[in-house]
């Protein structure tokens, strides 16, 4: 039905032409779901944009053929492409909030597509739009029709985007990272919904994702892309079980899955023995009945409602929950960026909550409690080089200057595996993994005793996530740090943590040893979290039927 041959796309830039896709070819049969898997920069999104002929300025299809049901997509006129886009091939974009018009009611946005392709008239458009909303399992379609995107959650917005994409009953749906940025239970709901709808309507689909586990669960066939080329193609289960290309092997290894340790994520040749990790019995931090209430427009908002837990010295504790559960507020209070409404934070037998966050910058304990931020890009000052970023705490707190400072920066770069020549670069000149290393180097610069890791790998590709997690495991042993690992992903938390605390709506609902919580969750919410995680087929073990 769709056939792509030798597709090559290049982008014109300041330093000359940069090839983004070279020689990509694949076929898609009716009713088939194809997964295109690759890490950022592999050209997977560009391939799909080329299919729809919506490449950014500077992008050009250099060679190749794309045929869709006999139509030559490469040379089709713009008017013909407009009919095909949305009508026959439609697309679901990465960020649902950005894909929706913020000042137009969602129902209207569905009507727009229907009208554009002559599927609705003024009289029946509203009814059809409501039906489309109900088809994506939105209850009260008639009411939601009048909602604006900002009134809906991320998962709801993605359902609207799916409703728009499916409104004209296209024959092919291209989903570009459809669940990035969504919570794990929402991810499962959205993916299940998409699979059911696509199957019920007999459509084909292409799912573009960096998550091999997710792709393996939902796709019939996978193409693995690297540097603009397809390195391996095959049925999902077989590809996962017996990856033949080294790169696929690396991706499969790096995907967190049950029963593997943090070192198993690395390629086989890099699996050195994990340093011994033994928490001490002494308590380092104790949180007693911590409460944070914000004054909202419609009454007080209870972000954190009486949280108590303790962390022993050298222990790694995971704080798990979905967005809005209060885990970020809790960690901001622990690192003293935010004042609790009430409660105590006892660190080294002293209550830190007594000192206001505004004055904590000059507290002698400032250097002993540090944090690695969620988004490495956002957490680096765009005007400061990597060396400036790492130097900041050393200058301000340790008072290092001149040669001693430079020596310490080099030492930290070495410790975090950051090549020295990158130190003079600005954040936008670094890759995601390199920025993560800069963020970690800055956080450990003062050898803190307690380090909060706020989703440190959420924005990273799986292979980079694997190296960063291993780096964190090594550093913990080397510097004797205590970790609080904040994440929504239980599979990742398990790799690094001894104990897990699960939060929901500002309260702790379950707490226990990491493996015990994952294997035998007692609280229904924990169970939902565990079940929602993508279950990649076991590699090299007996295969389970996919889907």
């Amino acid at each position, binding site marked *: 039905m769709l056939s792509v041959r030798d597709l090559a796309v290049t982008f014109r830039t300041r330093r000359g032409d940069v090839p983004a896709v070279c020689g990509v070819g694949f076929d898609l049969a009716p009713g088939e779901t194809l997964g295109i898997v690759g890490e950022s920069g592999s050209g997977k999104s560009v391939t799909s944009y080329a299919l729809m002929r919506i490449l950014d300025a500077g992008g050009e299809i250099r060679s190749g053929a794309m045929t869709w049901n006999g139509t030559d997509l490469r040379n089709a006129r713009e008017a013909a492409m407009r009919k095909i886009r949305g009508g026959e091939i439609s697309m679901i974009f990465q960020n649902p909030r950005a894909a929706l018009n913020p000042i137009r009611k969602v129902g209207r946005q569905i009507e727009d597509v229907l009208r554009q392709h002559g599927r609705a008239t003024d009289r029946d458009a509203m009814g059809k739009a409501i039906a489309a909303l109900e088809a994506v399992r939105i209850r009260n379609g008639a009411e939601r029709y009048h909602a604006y995107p900002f009134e809906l959650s991320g998962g709801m917005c993605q359902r609207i985007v799916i409703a728009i994409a499916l409104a004209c009953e296209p024959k092919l749906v291209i989903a570009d990272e459809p669940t990035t940025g969504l919570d794990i239970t929402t991810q499962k709901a959205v993916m299940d919904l998409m699979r059911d709808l696509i199957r019920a309507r007999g459509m084909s689909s292409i799912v573009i994702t960096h998550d091999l586990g997710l792709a393996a669960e939902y796709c019939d066939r996978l193409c693995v892309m690297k540097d603009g080329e397809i390195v391996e193609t095959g049925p999902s289960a077989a590809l996962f079980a017996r990856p033949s290309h080294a790169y696929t092997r690396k991706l499969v290894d790096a995907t967190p899955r049950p029963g593997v340790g943090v070192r198993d994520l690395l390629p086989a040749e890099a*699996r050195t023995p994990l340093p011994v990790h033994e928490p001490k019995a002494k308590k380092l931090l104790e949180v007693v009945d911590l409460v944070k209430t914000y004054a909202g427009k419609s009454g007080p908002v209870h972000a954190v409602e009486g949280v108590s837990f303790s962390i022993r010295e050298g222990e790694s504790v995971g704080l798990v929950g979905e967005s809005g559960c209060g885990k970020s507020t809790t960690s901001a209070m622990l690192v003293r960026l935010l004042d609790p409404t009430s409660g105590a934070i006892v660190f080294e037998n002293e209550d830190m909550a007594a000192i206001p966050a505004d004055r904590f910058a000059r507290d002698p304990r400032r250097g002993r409690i540090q944090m690695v931020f969620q988004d490495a890009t956002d957490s680096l000052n765009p005007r400061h080089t990597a060396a400036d970023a790492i130097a900041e705490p050393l200058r301000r707190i340790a008072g290092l200057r001149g040669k001693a400072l430079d020596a310490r920066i080099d030492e930290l770069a070495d410790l975090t595996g950051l*090549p020295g020549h*990158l130190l003079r670069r600005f954040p936008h000149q670094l890759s995601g993994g390199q920025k993560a290393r800069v963020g970690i180097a800055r956080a450990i610069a003062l050898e803190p005793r307690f380090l909060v890791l706020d989703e440190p790998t959420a924005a990273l590709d799986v292979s980079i996530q694997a190296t960063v997690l291993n780096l964190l495991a090594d550093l913990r042993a080397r510097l004797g740090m205590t970790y609080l690992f904040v994440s929504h992903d239980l599979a990742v938390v398990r790799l690094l943590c001894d104990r897990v605390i699960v939060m929901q709506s500002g309260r702790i609902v379950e707490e226990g040893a990491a493996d015990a919580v994952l294997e035998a969750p007692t609280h229904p919410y924990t169970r939902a979290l565990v079940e929602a995680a993508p279950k990649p087929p076991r590699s090299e073990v007996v295969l389970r039927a996919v889907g």
Partner: protein
Amino acid sequence: MSGIVSPAPTPAPERGALAHVGHVLRENPVTAVSFAMFAVIVLMAVLGPALVPYDPLATNAARALEPPSAAHWFGTDHLGRDVFSRVVVATRLDLTISVAAVALSFVIGATLGAIAGYRGGWVDAVLARVLDTIMAFPLFVLAMGIVAAMGNTIENIVYATAIINIPFYARVVRAEVNIRREAGFALAARLAGNSHARVLASHIVPNALPPMMVQVSLNMGWAILNAAGLSFIGLGVRPPTPEWGIMVAEGANYIVSGHWWVALFPGLWLMLAVFTFNLMGDGLRDIVDPRRRT
């Protein structure tokens, strides 16, 4: 580092600030032209009095109102003074007034806006109302009022021009600071032991520079127009000091009698100067934005 695969080192292209400026100029010919014109204006301001052929204040009744010629490129005015010499010499005064006014409003506006954007709450509300009050006046009339009330001196022209420009800077900076105060790098700076004041001054405000540079270049144009405008209506620099606004005002009387050059050339120079500053905005922004250094 054991067990960690480091990314293969790739050679970093090292580029200096000058190379970056060079690139920005090459990429956009309009920017290059505006920077060249700016260089000419600055040269005129610095060296003007030493270069001009005549004393800009020397009158010569015998040669009054002569049209442009090889001896007097821009002709002579009603007192026989050389218009070209006066136009060139006036550059220093006009540029000084506008640079001083813009610098003053930049510093005051950025400080107020940064504090309001970072603190929010009542500080923000009070500042916003004060700025609205300033903006509610027709700005030129406000400047006229300030100069008329405080006295007809060059310092007062600078103050008046600065006051009417403060709201523009304060608003730009307030918005830019506001969206960055919760940014990861601002929080990280606090974890690194910076006080709020230092986070604001050394981390957040520098990131607001690119849009401010656009504002600076637009404002330079306005400031020159404003200074000339005040002089034009007699509320500014006093004759016989050469200044573009006064020269246009004096020359305006002679346009009806056919002596167009007396008003045209200072007006043309004024226009070119404003034009230059307006065109420089995008280039300045690209130069101060580190993200452009790819």
